[in-house]
């Protein structure tokens, strides 16, 4: 179904070979009728998860397995002048100890080492111990003596930019040259505007806090390493670990069956993957190394904090004449791989505007490294841009939704290409305004100290289109059941179920006749990282192609058996039909009985994204809030959302993604903030006690309205991503609602009671003056 074309430029060693997969699969039509797709089938792994039998990485138990812990730096910046692990090594029950004193020099973070003699953040890896039990490993860590030569540090984003700031790196605190984007002339656009806005916004560093921490179990059989790893990308981990240990890729097998959340932070390999492998080799037994909550929150990723100065210009009728943004983000002490937090992106694409300027710098500070966190960059940008649009609407005395409609972008203005579904965002505007009754909307009247408000925000998302390549195999068994195999992973989103529905639909089999296998580099074909809300849109079409491939073989055999041309045959609900009718047909199981002991196999690849158009998911949300002007408490009453995710493969799973994303968005808006004591460089809340993630008591009523318009040009299934988008507009919608309720503009996230009270008292003193 997929052919691979080789494009070659040049000859010999200088030749550049580019493989282009050409998809010959036509898209399911927009009005296609389905048997399995579009149904809210319960998760395939549900039974395992409700019985406690689902095996997560931390549940792996191998014979003679040891447990490892990591000693981490207590200083934000220091040189290790001496390290003595002898007492730890001598402790009974200790199997292996690693530190800069004995570990191989393995490069990490580009310009550092697995165990470096300079530590640049609290939580940096200093040594590791594998022992009979975690308790013994804990005792051993206490026996390691480390002498630190403490160095100057800086953890504050603004302070790190001062000319005399302590240097996180010898070359200074900028991670790279500023990223500058210009379209038209933003300064001229601002000068020619009737109304302008100029405001600075800040977003806090947020911590992923996946409930299952990062970690792995490493086991060697001779030269073969197996890693059970809590990861969003088994193939990325395989490649990076193989490289670090100088092993060929086929000597490393990475397995991830179930995962307790990732949210972006698990899309690359981290130090503990290699540390566990080295400890295991040294100890001669399997080693499990799971991070504790504190390490999880210090060392393996966060959403970078940002400072964003935004200037908008518009004509009296609301037409945008300029969008201008100056952005700084705190990257932490190291640069990691994976999706970057591109904060500038949304400024360039969400609204139609001829004059756009963005400058973005990324700054080293002595804290844990930033890494992608669900809709990286867009969540941060949205908090600023969508509040600025609200401020602009107010200045213009214009309805905030109307202002956005007047600046509607039907093309990707950076790529200068139309969107595959140019009305996607318009559908979202229509759905949410209708649902909330926007035309006749009335806020509740104040009651005592309670004030009520409503806020709106829109979004686009830079990913969600799928990132090929990605592959799938299907084997049709001799009894008519099928095994579907891919190397992708289910990170908790319901990937197994959504993809199995695509397979069942195209194979014409009931869902319970399909076994779905994923998350194992040893058994499945290459699939990319589960990030960018891309998995369904990447692997769905590959599975569809594989199903078509095997179905063609099945129908050819059925054609011979039934003496009917292939063109008149189809498969539905496990039966080969003739002219759409069961009469004269034959169950798939019967056909396969004739084929046995042979089986039929299909292969599929994901074709390329369209080259002349751009695929994007969109969305819009209203937030309704109650603000207590005495306590500063913001209570969320309701979120109304609509998201263009293309064709909905499974409405139950889509709803769950949207509800879950919105709930994470409420945390980002109201409570979630990594707090650093900048005098000491210490993170004060690397735990679930003082880092406040939403509980069930914080959840508002959520009304999600399906858009469900298949994006038939996006890929052969018409589905786009939904994992990240719902988080993007929630926080600015809430901030705008708070302004609507009490007239304070909180330009710093999260909107804690303290911040709300500070703003309220500032306003009162202004009014009193």
């Amino acid at each position: 179904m997929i052919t691979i074309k080789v494009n070659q430029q040049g000859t010999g060693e200088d030749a550049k070979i580019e493989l282009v997969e050409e998809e010959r699969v036509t898209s399911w039509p927009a009005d296609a009728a389905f048997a399995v797709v579009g149904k809210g089938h319960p998760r395939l792994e549900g039974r395992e998860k409700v019985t406690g039998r689902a095996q997560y990485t931390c549940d792996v138990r191998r014979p003679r397995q040891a447990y490892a812990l990591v000693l981490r730096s207590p200083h934000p910046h220091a040189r290790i002048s001496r390290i003595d692990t002898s007492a730890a090594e001598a402790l009974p029950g200790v199997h292996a100890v690693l530190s800069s004193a004995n570990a191989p020099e393995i490069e990490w973070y580009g310009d550092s080492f697995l165990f470096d003699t300079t530590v640049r953040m609290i939580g940096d890896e200093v040594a590791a111990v594998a022992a009979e039990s975690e308790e013994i490993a804990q005792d051993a860590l206490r026996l390691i003596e480390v002498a630190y030569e403490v160095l100057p540090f800086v953890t504050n984003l603004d302070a790190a930019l001062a000319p005399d700031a302590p240097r996180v790196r010898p070359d200074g605190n900028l991670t790279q040259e500023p990223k500058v984007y210009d379209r038209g002339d933003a300064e001229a656009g601002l000068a020619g505007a009737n109304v302008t806005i100029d405001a600075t916004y800040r977003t806090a560093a947020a911590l992923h806090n996946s409930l299952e921490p990062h970690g792995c179990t490493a086991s060697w059989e001779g030269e073969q390493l197996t890693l059970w790893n809590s990861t969003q990308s088994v193939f990325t981990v395989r490649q990076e670990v193989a490289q670090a240990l100088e092993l060929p890729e086929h000597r490393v097998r990475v397995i991830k069956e179930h995962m307790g959340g990732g949210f972006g932070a698990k899309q690359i390999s981290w130090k503990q993957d290699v540390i566990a492998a080295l400890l295991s080799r040294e100890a001669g037994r399997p080693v499990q190394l799971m991070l504790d909550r504190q390490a999880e929150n210090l060392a393996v990723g966060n959403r970078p904090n940002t400072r964003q100065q935004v200037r908008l210009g518009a004509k009296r009728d609301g037409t945008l004449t300029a969008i201008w943004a100056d952005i700084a983000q705190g990257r932490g002490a190291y640069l990691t791989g994976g999706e970057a937090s591109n904060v500038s992106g949304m400024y360039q694409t969400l609204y139609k505007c001829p004059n756009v300027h963005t400058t973005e710098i990324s700054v080293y500070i002595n804290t844990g490294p930033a890494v992608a966190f669900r809709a990286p960059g867009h969540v941060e940008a949205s908090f600023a841009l969508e509040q600025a649009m609200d401020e602009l609407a107010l200045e213009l005395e214009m309805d905030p939704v109307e202002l956005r409609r007047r600046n509607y972008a039907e093309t990707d203005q950076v790529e200068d290409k139309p969107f595959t579904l140019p009305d996607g965002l318009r559908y979202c505007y229509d759905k949410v305004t209708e649902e909330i009754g926007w035309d006749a909307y009335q806020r509740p009247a104040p009651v005592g100290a309670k004030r009520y408000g409503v806020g709106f925000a829109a979004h686009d998302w830079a990913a969600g289109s799928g990132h090929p390549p990605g592959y799938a195999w299907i084997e049709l068994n001799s009894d008519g059941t099928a095994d579907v195999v891919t190397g992708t992973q289910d990170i908790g989103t319901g990937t197994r179920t959504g993809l199995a529905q695509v397979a069942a639909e195209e194979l014409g089999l009931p869902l319970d006749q399909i076994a779905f296998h994923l998350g194992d580099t040893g058994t499945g074909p290459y699939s990319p990282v589960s990030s960018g809300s891309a998995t369904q849109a990447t692997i769905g079409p590959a599975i569809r192609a594989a199903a078509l491939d095997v179905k063609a073989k099945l129908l050819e055999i059925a054609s011979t058996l039934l003496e009917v041309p292939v063109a008149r045959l189809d498969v539905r609900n496990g039966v080969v039909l003739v002219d759409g009718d069961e009469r004269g047909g034959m169950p798939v199981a019967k056909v396969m009985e004739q084929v046995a002991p042979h089986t039929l196999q299909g292969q599929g690849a994901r074709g390329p994204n369209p080259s002349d158009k751009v695929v994007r998911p969109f969305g819009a949300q209203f937030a309704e809030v109650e603000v207590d002007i005495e306590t500063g408490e913001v209570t969320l009453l309701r979120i109304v959302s609509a998201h263009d995710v293309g064709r909905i493969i499974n409405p139950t799973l889509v709803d769950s993604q949207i509800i879950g994303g919105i709930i994470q968005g409420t945390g980002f808006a109201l409570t979630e903030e990594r707090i650093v004591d900048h005098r000491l460089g210490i993170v004060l809340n690397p735990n679930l006690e003082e880092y406040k993630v939403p509980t069930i008591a914080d959840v508002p009523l959520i009304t999600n309205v399906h858009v469900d318009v298949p994006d038939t040009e996006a890929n052969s299934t018409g589905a786009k991503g939904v994992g990240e988008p719902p988080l993007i507009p929630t926080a600015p919608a809430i901030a705008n609602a708070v302004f609507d309720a009490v007239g304070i503009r909180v330009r710093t996230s999260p909107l804690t009671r303290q911040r709300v009270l500070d703003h309220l008292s500032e306003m009162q003193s202004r009014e009193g003056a």
Partner: protein
Amino acid sequence: MSSTSSTASLHVPVTLNINRQQHSMFVEPRRTLLDALRQNLDLTGTKKVCDMGNCGACTVVVDGRAMYACLLLAVDCDGREITTIEGVATGNQLDPLQEAFIEADAFQCGFCTSGQIMSLRALFEQQQDPTDDQIERAVTGILCRCGAYPNIAKAGRLAADRRAAATRAGGGS
């Protein structure tokens, strides 16, 4: 495993009554009930997330009450009646609460699910016909980072209603 380690002298005997089975073992006095379940008995359905009583993922039922297993020492649980997620189904037959969780899509990654179910189970042991508020309160101490909360409440309601209906039907026979 720990009973065979070279620090065995620090270990003390304990008998844990888990899911109606007696398990005798030697543990270090500092070993939590959570680690005893996960490490000594390979009952890994109970999850370790924060290990300090903040998240509720390790909730088990002890003498009829929902408790955080990370805040209990194994040695203090000698003789107490403990139910974990592994003891909720009867053989292959799921408990109505488990069925309701699947039906209401009350989990995504599933890492908090054991804690949510055990907490509701304790509520159901105490309350014949719990209110929505009681259901919500029962799981207020169990964090779900995927944000399945509305569906968790829905699953609790569904299971409670079915139980009440079954009791009424049973009472009539």
